[in-house]
């Protein structure tokens, strides 16, 4: 079995196993569902980007020249809603996670394939309702839906948008539930918990957040919609309710939601850093448990969004302390990644460029998060562009970089084709430069006092705004390049080998693209994650397996 001859007939894989639109829309194969998600989140990312372009164009000049204030309110609201709920939250889990979680643990599929397909339809239904709301007249509350503006005063489509997000939440819940059960019950023989790739650990932590947090935003939005329609009050002070309760409930989900976005990305980065340094990750257990720690701590810090919202000073101090505490597991990850690089045999392929970019940008985003966790500093920069820059560093510099890195890394496995490495590296650099030029000036803007959600500003801020808009255009070009070449590879890309990067992970021990049931036979795992010991050493310790280790 050591030798491998190319078959003359096309091999059956998950893509050519069946044909026709029905075979895709009714598929229960996790890999096909991942592709359905990939298509739909790309579509939503495109819509969200259009809003971003419009916002940046408007901000080129200090006056309101493109749109009126009310339109501008809708633009940033819809940018936020689309990007957060319909791109960032499902991005890595629903595409890469869906594709890879079963493969990495040696399973044939997720535990509940029908629920998996259902989750995509729920996502689609939520997305379509939201798009209807945007077309019908849009929504202007900000993606945070703060009461009482959203319940009483806003004249936009709050209920329809809320309904879309409410429905979409269940797709997130189903995905998380599916991952938890799959990771618990479907691991291949020998795949012990501490042999799991870190991508799996981070998805496990993400799933916990999805399962525990999403129901809370669901009931919150439901109560908000009822309050708006039927004038029953939990949030309305006129009816004895409490608008700050809404903020508590909202951030109880929406702060952990940030970890739904960034934890999977950290999983991707752990994979790329270890594999492209060709070294076992430094401190495997620390990196694994730091994911769980982030998930747990993430639920205890929501109050740092309410430092200036009538929260008691003592509660503020505790939330401030806990928010600092989240930095510990995050820093463990960053230090362990850098320690992994040390003396590694590093190759600067596209995925690695994105991963290294992630480390830098996430560090900046995380450190500025500490500014915001500091009570006094937060009062100064609250609701300014400092916040905007901070969370874009986490969401774009973190989540999006991980997503793009992972997409390139596993593209040979997903599509069976190699992407053009030169274009890949070039676009990674363009994205990095564009991103920094867009958001670094916003830190300064915010510190100088430019409030978020305004489109008319004092003329002295214009230089920084122009820089930011220029950066956004570069970023946009950088994002368009992969869109073109990844589609191009589907037809013209060189055929990818089963294991083009020569890596030990389970997903590389099956053909590219994989067969419908992932593996010809259920694998038995006898190796640790990221086992990069040289062949000589493996022979000495008796772990050398010629049919696997000599794959080239």
């Amino acid at each position, binding site marked *: 079995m050591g030798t491998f001859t190319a078959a003359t007939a096309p091999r059956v894989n998950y893509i050519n196993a069946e044909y026709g639109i029905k075979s895709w829309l009714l598929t229960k194969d996790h890999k096909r569902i991942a592709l359905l998600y990939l298509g739909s989140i790309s579509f939503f990312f495109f819509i969200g980007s259009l809003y971003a372009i419009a916002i940046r164009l408007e901000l080129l000049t200090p006056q309101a020249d493109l749109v009126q204030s009310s339109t501008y309110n809708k633009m940033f609201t819809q940018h936020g809603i689309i990007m957060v709920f319909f791109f960032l939250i499902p991005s890595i889990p629903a595409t890469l996670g869906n594709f890879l979680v079963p493969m990495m643990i040696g399973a044939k599929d997720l535990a509940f394939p029908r629920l998996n397909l259902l989750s995509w339809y729920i996502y689609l239904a939520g997305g379509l309702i939201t798009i209807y709301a945007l077309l019908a007249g849009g929504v202007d509350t900000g993606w945070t839906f703060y009461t009482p503006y959203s319940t009483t005063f806003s004249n936009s489509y709050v209920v329809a948008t809320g309904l879309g997000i409410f429905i979409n939440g269940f797709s997130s819940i189903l995905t998380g539930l599916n991952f938890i059960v*799959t990771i618990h019950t479907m691991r291949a023989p020998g795949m012990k918990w501490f042999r799991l790739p870190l991508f799996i650990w981070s998805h496990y932590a993400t799933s916990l957040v999805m399962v525990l947090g999403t129901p*809370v935003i669901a009931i919150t939005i439901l109560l908000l919609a009822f309050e708006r329609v039927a*004038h029953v009050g939990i949030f309305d002070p006129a009816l004895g309710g409490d608008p700050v309760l809404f903020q508590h409930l909202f951030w109880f989900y929406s702060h952990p939601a940030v970890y739904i976005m960034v934890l999977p990305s950290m999983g991707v980065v752990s994979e790329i850093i270890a594999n492209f340094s060709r070294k076992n990750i430094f401190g495997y257990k620390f990196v694994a448990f730091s994911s769980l720690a982030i998930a747990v701590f993430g639920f205890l810090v929501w109050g740092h969004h309410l430092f200036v919202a009538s929260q008691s000073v003592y509660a503020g101090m505790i939330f401030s302390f806990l928010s600092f505490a989240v930095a510990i597991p995050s820093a463990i990850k960053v230090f362990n990644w850098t320690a992994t690089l040390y003396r590694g045999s590093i190759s600067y392929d596209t995925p690695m460029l994105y991963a290294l970019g992630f480390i830098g940008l996430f560090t900046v985003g995380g450190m500025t998060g500490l500014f915001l966790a500091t009570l006094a500093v937060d009062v100064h920069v609250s609701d300014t562009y400092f916040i905007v820059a901070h969370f874009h560093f986490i969401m774009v510099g973190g989540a999006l970089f991980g997503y793009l890195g992972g997409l390139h890394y596993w593209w040979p496995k997903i599509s069976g084709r190699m992407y053009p490495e030169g274009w890949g590296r070039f676009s990674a650099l363009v994205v990095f430069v564009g991103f920094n030029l867009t958001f670094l000036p916003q830190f300064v803007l915010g510190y100088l006092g430019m409030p978020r959600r305004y489109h008319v500003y004092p003329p002295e801020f214009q230089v920084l705004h122009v820089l930011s808009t220029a950066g956004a255009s570069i970023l946009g070009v950088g994002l368009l390049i992969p869109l073109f070449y990844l589609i191009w590879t589907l037809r013209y890309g060189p055929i990818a080998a089963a294991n083009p990067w020569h890596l030990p992970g389970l997903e590389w021990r099956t053909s590219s693209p994989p067969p419908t049931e992932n593996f010809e036979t259920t694998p038995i795992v006898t190796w640790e994650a990221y086992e990069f010991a040289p062949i000589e050493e493996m022979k000495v310790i008796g772990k050398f397996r010629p049919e696997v280790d000599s794959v080239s």
Partner: protein
Amino acid sequence: MAEGYVATEHAASHPALQHHFENMEQQREAGTLGMWVFLVTEIMFFGGMFLAYMLFRSAYPGAFVAGSNHLDIKLGAINTGVLIVSSLTMALAVYSTQVGQRRMSVIFLIATMVLGTTFLGIKAVEYHDKYRDSLVPGKLIPGRPFNPAVQEHGAAYDEHKLHLPEGESVKHVELFYWIYFALTGVHALHMIVGIGLLSFMLYFSIRGRYSPEYHAPIEISGLYWHFVDIIWIFLFPLLYLLGRHLEHGG
């Protein structure tokens, strides 16, 4: 055969075994864990409303007691009994399936569904009473806003009137009723889903699909049913009982 791989053939695989599971045990484990995780999400879903209850109860204790006292404790208590018995019949239905007594299992499933429907019927009577007294909050019912008659101080007792302690705002009673309707309404919705689930179980049980080897769906539906009952076990004291003694003693 290459070293390190095993074939996944089974001596005898059950017809209900799905292709991606290795054996029935794994399939059952996955299904059960899936339901437990789902129930955790349910706890979080109800949790938002329980939080609101807790917060406003401590903010407006008097109004909440007044609202609570106006609920029909007899119907509530009967409903509690009905649900507890339905949990028993559900457990017996699972047991009968496990030991292969299909007839008994069908009878117990029907009993569970009848008890569940009884609960919903009694709940409907209660809802109607609230509608009659104009206690449905806000504009939930078009044309019949929240507008209860408040008992005059020292007037003859009238069970249709709200007994509001002095200094308490009727607005806060409305808040109580909104929380009451939200919690019991979502709970009733879960009951309806549960009865729907059980009707599938009943259909397949009659068709003889379940056996001592394969009974996971009934077991999992049972988990859901018990969970919905437990929610009510919390709702009943919180909404009907707490602070009842204050009416006459305080």
